[in-house]
């Protein structure tokens, strides 16, 4: 697994930040937010690494989000003791905004001139997410199939789930799957126009007085392989990806069904496929954005799905620390579940003063050690996409 987020450049840094209950919010400097209600986000100071040494001149076409994705891919490969993408059957990546900043620049250049503008072909070509992915595969000299999934804020989870399906149906033995998104003016302004960004700059998921979400950026990928493929490489698996379930909430384009019915479906189906009951879930990394609508719907869904067992299920939202990574969220949060399983700890849902009355579960308010065999992560997106992933320790048994 590889991860780059506002909490750290890699697994070690992210875990250290989660253990220390650190938050990553600061004033936005990448673009002008002077007219926005919210002014902060969780951004990454990209290191000045040479990530694309083989691309030469084309390396200048690489977008910010692609850079984050490449960082996480390199970390993942290193952990898996692989030097490149040889042996990987497919790349499945989720994103909601792709290389939006390049598109924004294309627009600015276009409207400023009545004639054709130098550099526009490169901008429009590089703006397309599949062209960005092609830069990554060209760097590795890899010629496998790339699937790009874009289901808003569930994209990263959908990508990992799709990879699991590819392996289970025998379409692939080994898939690199994950998601990414980088800060972009259009997207930040869009959320601000909906008045869902926290004016306080601090998202407080499941707090009774929460006032919205904060945008973040980042990427994470996992190498998912069948047991046979892992044995072939004599590789040491970190954990088991048990199950994935998805459903579509038809209530509204942006607002969830208040009862969280699609989330109940995904959590129920994910448990059924994993062969476990709700009370065996040792931790839920919730979607938990910090908006009034999402958190109450998700809380209601957890209560309905788990019933009496809800009170004993630890739940937190790491968006309280790193913001909402949009297309990258599902992948990063699945990776946090992986870290939690391996380290036997739970990250906190930070800055909660008073829990919302809808909270019937064990809301983890700060980092704590724990014993857990199964971790579940929820991701919900605009358009009603709901996704649930369940991971377990290798000793956990079952599906």
């Amino acid at each position: 697994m590889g991860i780059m987020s506002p909490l750290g450049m890699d697994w070690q840094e992210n875990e250290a930040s989660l253990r220390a209950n650190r938050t990553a919010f600061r004033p936005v400097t990448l673009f002008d937010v002077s007219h926005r209600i919210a002014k902060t986000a969780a951004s990454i100071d990209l290191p000045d690494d040479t990530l694309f040494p083989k691309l030469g001149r084309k390396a200048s076409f690489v977008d910010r989000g692609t850079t984050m994705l490449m960082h996480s891919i390199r970390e993942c490969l290193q952990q898996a003791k692989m030097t490149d993408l040889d042996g990987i059957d497919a790349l499945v990546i989720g994103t909601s905004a792709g290389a939006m900043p390049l598109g924004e620049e294309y627009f600015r250049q276009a409207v400023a001139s009545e004639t054709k503008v130098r550099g526009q072909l490169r901008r429009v070509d590089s703006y397309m997410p599949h062209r960005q992915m092609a830069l990554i595969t060209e760097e590795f000299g890899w010629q496998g199939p790339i699937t790009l999934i874009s289901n808003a804020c569930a994209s990263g989870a959908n990508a990992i789930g799709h990879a699991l399906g590819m392996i289970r149906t025998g379409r692939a033995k080994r898939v690199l799957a994950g998601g990414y998104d980088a800060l972009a003016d259009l997207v930040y302004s869009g959320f601000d126009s909906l008045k869902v960004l926290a004016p306080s700059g601090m998202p407080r998921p499941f707090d009774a007085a929460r006032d919205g979400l904060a945008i973040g950026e980042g990427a994470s990928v996992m190498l998912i392989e069948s047991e046979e493929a892992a044995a072939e490489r004599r590789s040491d698996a970190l954990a088991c990806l048990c199950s994935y379930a998805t459903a579509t909430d038809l209530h509204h384009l942006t607002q969830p069904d208040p009862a969280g019915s699609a989330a109940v479906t995904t959590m129920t189906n994910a448990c059924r496929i994993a062969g476990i009951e709700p009370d065996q879930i040792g931790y839920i990394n919730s979607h938990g954005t910090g908006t009034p609508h999402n958190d109450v719907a998700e809380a209601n869904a957890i209560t309905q799905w788990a019933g009496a067992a809800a009170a004993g299920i630890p739940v937190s939202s790491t968006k309280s620390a790193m913001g909402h990574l949009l297309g990258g969220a599902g992948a990063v949060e699945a990776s946090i579940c992986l870290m939690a399983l391996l380290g036997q700890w739970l990250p906190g849902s930070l800055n909660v003063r008073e829990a919302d009355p809808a909270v019937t579960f064990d809301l983890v308010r700060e980092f704590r050690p724990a014993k857990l065999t199964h971790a579940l992560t929820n991701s919900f997106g605009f358009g009603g996409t709901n996704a649930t992933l369940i991971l377990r320790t290798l000793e956990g048994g079952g599906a």
Partner: protein
Amino acid sequence: MNLSILGTGAVTAAGWLTQDFITACLQRTMIPTSEPARTAGKTRTWTCRVRGVPGAAPADLLPKSPRLRRASPLTKFEVAAAMQALSSAGLSIADLGGRLGLVQVLQNGCVQYSVRFFAELQVQPELPSPLIFPETVFNAPASHLAQCLGVNGMVTTLIGEPNHLVEAVFTAQQWMEEDLIDHCLIVASEEMDWMTVEALSYYHPDLIASEGAAALLLGRPVAGKPRITALSPLLTHHLPIDRQRVLRELASSGSTGTLIDHCSGVAAIDRPETSAWSGWPGDRWSPGMVLGDALGASCGLQWVLASHLATSQQVPVTLSMPGANASSVAVIQQV
């Protein structure tokens, strides 16, 4: 590959009906072009042309849904194509028993709203419209379509080159093998606006943009329906020389019968493909030359035409689907 094409639908510059598209292709109709005016910034001084979907949808083609009130043109193309695909399969939503999946394939997405929202941001940064932003996300049309069809299960959006439709077909097969669905509606679509039309003109001044949607209703094999008898995975290439080699390899694997290519009518753009398929002995059709480049909808439209020809002419139909980063070939025939 173990799938049949049970029904198809198309909305194109030829008209809102699938038959409009088929007739235009077979008769090689000359569809008029227009020049889209900019809605922001300085007035353009060079020529770029588009063939747009004409007028509004026929009154009975779209369901009455509040979701369609403010939805983008792309959404309406998709819904119209999807309804025709279901109708041509002789199936209603009720017949599908809640086991219908939906895969949307796009290249640019809801550009009209994206451009409008970003333009508003530049001019009045304190007042961007909250009604527009949600409609800019790639999966918004799929969400509206899912609501119109009552699909609350497997719905996803794939983005990429037009031939990303190949991944959509593999996804449909995967979901059926996982017993998650019994049928899958694949909808490939695109809408045009001035910015995208201008962008295409940077690739070549003679490229004509187009828009529309193609819908394919896929299911397990059914006698009397066209079947996908061959489908290569997307073979990635990075350099032009690799692309040419891949295209030649794919062309050498093609069947006899009819070929539907991806040519645009611009020789410089088409050269790698025409060179690879130069030895093709049978009939050849180029919907792109009739319509223009419909980007994300273009491969889907090839499949709609292929399905029609496989049924009407009872010959295998080969589809050439070249891309900038990856290419594929498929064969469809009545079995």
